[in-house]
């Protein structure tokens, strides 16, 4: 079916004003937060209700046209990159929120709701929504669910998957299922757990039941300056070894500090080669005692300055430097790649030393910003796109850092997702059997492969055949169009 025919059917079903086909308008949706991949979609649907999503998906399924769900478009791995001539279903207008069910610690939201709005609405009940990605002022809950978003505080509180209790999902054939709910568990497979973090490849959530947490009695935040990255890393290890589970431990190196200072004047300690932002929360007595213990550990590891936030404003300033670090790097470099990898926390010093060696060898600067408590690195590879070949070198370096994460026992992504960017790296972290097994789930949800195809997995697959010993060659495989699955 031609795009024009599908667009006409979409207009008829959900209203002409919600269906975009004008080329200039389509280009607004050609990329997400990873701007170096761009594809112009065939049609954009601005859904305003569950029924619109159901109709759009059903019509795509009937036409055999792929669709890509999109929230705020802040993703950093190209997960919302359109498929050429495919349909983008925009969910930003599905913004119903609440009411907060304070006694059950739950709230039901639509996918276009902005992350921070949930905590804003929960605050009068002394409740909060724990996952707090740095983009929380603009990113949507639907996108958070697709990527299983983390944030600075997931060291203690866990990720999106630990805080989403239920979902209404439009499957790629247009049918609607309800996974999970308000209760903590339900008979049957945990399809909700499989759905969260599936990057839009299993369907589109149109409603989500979120778990809220009680705002802790007290929060204490400190900013610690070190003259070496090793001392900062050793402090992280010692805090964890002392049996303390901070709400967050974030690290920034000298280059990241320089960028943050240039951008937001956060007043981090002058001369610091590394800083840690350490936050503890919980009962007053416990936080006070453990906070003192953390100070002692930092001093023993040669911290040269420890600053303790005296009020919410000072705490916000400490966090501002950290949360604006990605964008801030734009102040000190014409261009940069944001990377996202994970290593076992204990490997931090050696991996950082190796990144420095690799960066020196290529002659490109790498700023390091990371969730040190859970070993989630965000190396920012700086380059000048006006210099011939630098973008390529930077991309290679970023890729090599990911392979270092894998060989250190870690992962190619801790919170940004695989998306378009890292799908080829999946084959380095997982065996063909591992990937085939994941595809079994894909084939159960989306046998025709129309939900966000081309993302997450390195190779396109057909769902027609079962895995196991193969006999003969499938026609599609012979034609070089895909691997039989």
């Amino acid at each position, binding site marked *: 079916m031609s795009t024009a025919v599908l667009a006409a059917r979409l207009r008829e079903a959900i209203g002409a004003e919600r269906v975009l086909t004008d080329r200039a308008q389509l280009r607004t949706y050609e990329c997400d937060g990873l701007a170096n991949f761009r594809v112009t979609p065939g049609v954009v649907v601005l859904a305003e209700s569950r029924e619109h999503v159901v109709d759009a998906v059903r019509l795509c399924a009937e036409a055999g046209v792929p669709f890509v769900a999109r929230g705020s478009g802040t993703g950093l791995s190209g997960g919302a990159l359109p498929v050429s001539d495919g349909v983008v279903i925009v969910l930003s207008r599905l913004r119903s929120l609440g009411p907060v*069910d304070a*006694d059950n610690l739950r709230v039901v939201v639509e996918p276009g709701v902005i992350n921070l709005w949930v905590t804003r609405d929960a605050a009068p*009940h002394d409740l909060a929504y724990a996952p707090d990605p740095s983009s929380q002022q603009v990113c949507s809950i639907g996108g958070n669910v697709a990527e299983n978003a983390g944030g600075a505080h*997931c060291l203690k509180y*866990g*990720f999106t*998957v*630990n805080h989403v209790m239920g979902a209404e999902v439009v499957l790629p054939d247009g049918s*609607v*299922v*309800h996974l999970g*709910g*308000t*209760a*903590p*568990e*339900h*008979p*049957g*497979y*945990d*399809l909700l*757990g*499989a759905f969260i*973090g*599936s990057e839009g490849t299993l369907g589109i959530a149109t409603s989500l039941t979120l778990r809220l947490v*009680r705002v*802790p009695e007290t929060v204490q935040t400190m900013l610690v300056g070190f003259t070496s990255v090793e001392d900062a890393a050793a402090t992280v*290890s010692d805090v*964890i*070894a002392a*049996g303390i589970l901070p709400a967050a431990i974030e690290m920034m190196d000298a280059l990241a500090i320089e960028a943050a200072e240039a951008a937001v004047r956060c007043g981090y300690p002058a001369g610091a080669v590394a800083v840690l932002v350490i936050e503890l929360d*919980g*009962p*007053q*007595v416990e936080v006070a*005692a453990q906070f003192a213990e953390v100070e002692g550990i930092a001093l023993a590891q040669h911290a040269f300055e420890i600053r303790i936030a005296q009020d919410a404003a000072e705490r916000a300033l400490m966090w501002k430097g950290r949360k604006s670090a990605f964008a801030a790097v734009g102040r000190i470099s014409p261009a940069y790649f944001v990377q996202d990898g*994970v290593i*076992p926390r*204990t490997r931090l010093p050696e991996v950082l030393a190796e990144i420095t060696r690799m960066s020196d060898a290529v002659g490109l600067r790498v700023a390091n910003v990371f969730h040190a408590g859970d*070993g989630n690195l965000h190396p920012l590879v700086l380059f000048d796109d006006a210099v011939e070949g630098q973008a390529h070198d930077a991309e290679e370096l970023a890729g090599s850092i990911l392979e270092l994460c894998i060989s250190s026992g870690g*992962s190619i*992504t*801790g*919170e940004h*997702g*695989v998306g378009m960017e890292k799908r080829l790296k*999946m084959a380095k*972290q*997982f065996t063909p*059997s591992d*990937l085939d*097994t*994941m595809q*079994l*789930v894909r084939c*159960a949800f989306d046998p025709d492969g129309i939900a966000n195809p081309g993302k*997450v997995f390195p190779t396109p697959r057909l769902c027609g055949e*079962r*895995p196991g010993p193969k006999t003969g060659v499938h026609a599609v495989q012979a034609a070089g169009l895909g691997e039989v699955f």
Partner: protein
Amino acid sequence: MLTDATTVVRPTSVDEVSQVLRAAHRDGRTVLAAGGRTKLDWAPPASVDVLIDTTGLDRIVEHTAGDLVAIAEAGVRLTSLQDQLASAGQWLALDPPEQGATLGGIVSANASGPRRLRFGTVRDLLIGVTVVLADGTVAHAGGKVVKNVAGYDLGKLYTGAHGTLGVVVSTTWRLHPVAPARRVVVLDLPDALAAGPLAVAIARSTLTPTAVELHATTGGNGSLVVVFEAIEASVHAQADAAVTLLGGGRQLDELPALFGERPGSTEDLILRLAFAPASLTAVLAALPDGTEVTASACTGVLYAALPASSAAALDALRAAIAPYDGSAVVLNAPAGLSLDHWGPVGDSLELMRRVKDRFDPERRLAPGRFVGGI
């Protein structure tokens, strides 16, 4: 379920498990895996040709204390793992009531205990898994770092699947430090129903108990046990605050007898109910008077022991708790009773069948054991 015709095999490596499943695949034989055999009565399949005894997979592969991560094979008993972790002041924060359970069984049955309130359940702690599929394929998911969003999180899918998608052979876990001190507040309740509002009050307070357990008889009395596990100063301050919040209660340094245990015997119909957490009062009221219950009062999980004669009223109970997103799963049915172990699943059952069809198209893994006859 196990008959004279059942072949029991006890592989000692992942490769051997794979060989067993490949052979079963070739010969069209049905397979069930079991570890400590503590939950074999939970919705047992009618019969199986091959029982894989996983207790030969007994290696603790890795414990990196600095990373708070451990890898252990499926046949390792939870108690053995905890013993080893304790030497580093750590533990796997799961405390299911079934004594002698193995890690594979805990994952497959999604078993948990009172500390689910603070630490969650298997889905919150399992960060990596290796499974052997019906055709012998060995597949991994997750990894050995806590934060990891690469690929589908199949650990979630295998958790609670009761062996119907594959045989879990190795597990990787997020660990927690053992708290240095404990303080327990026990409040006796003349009327068990009073536990509901108290549990909501605790959940909405700044207290951070690791468990809040109700032991009660419906229509009668009960006791609420609030457990604080943290540093010394904190547990004392919090226990004092809890007594104020609850309007009473006595403080103990140790857990009371029967803490975390399920009520009932093999003669009883034992149910596991799950529901919206603030509906505890309504769920208690929906149970017949005189039912012995243990509940994780702030979490929405409750175990009930009913006389065998109440099996006929199971559907009515399920209907009564449905408004609270409630479900009732049978953990133990007296011999000879035939009933629906799982109850209604909702509109996702067809999708579950499609998942099963992809993983085990010949339906040879724990056939008939799961929801909807899966």
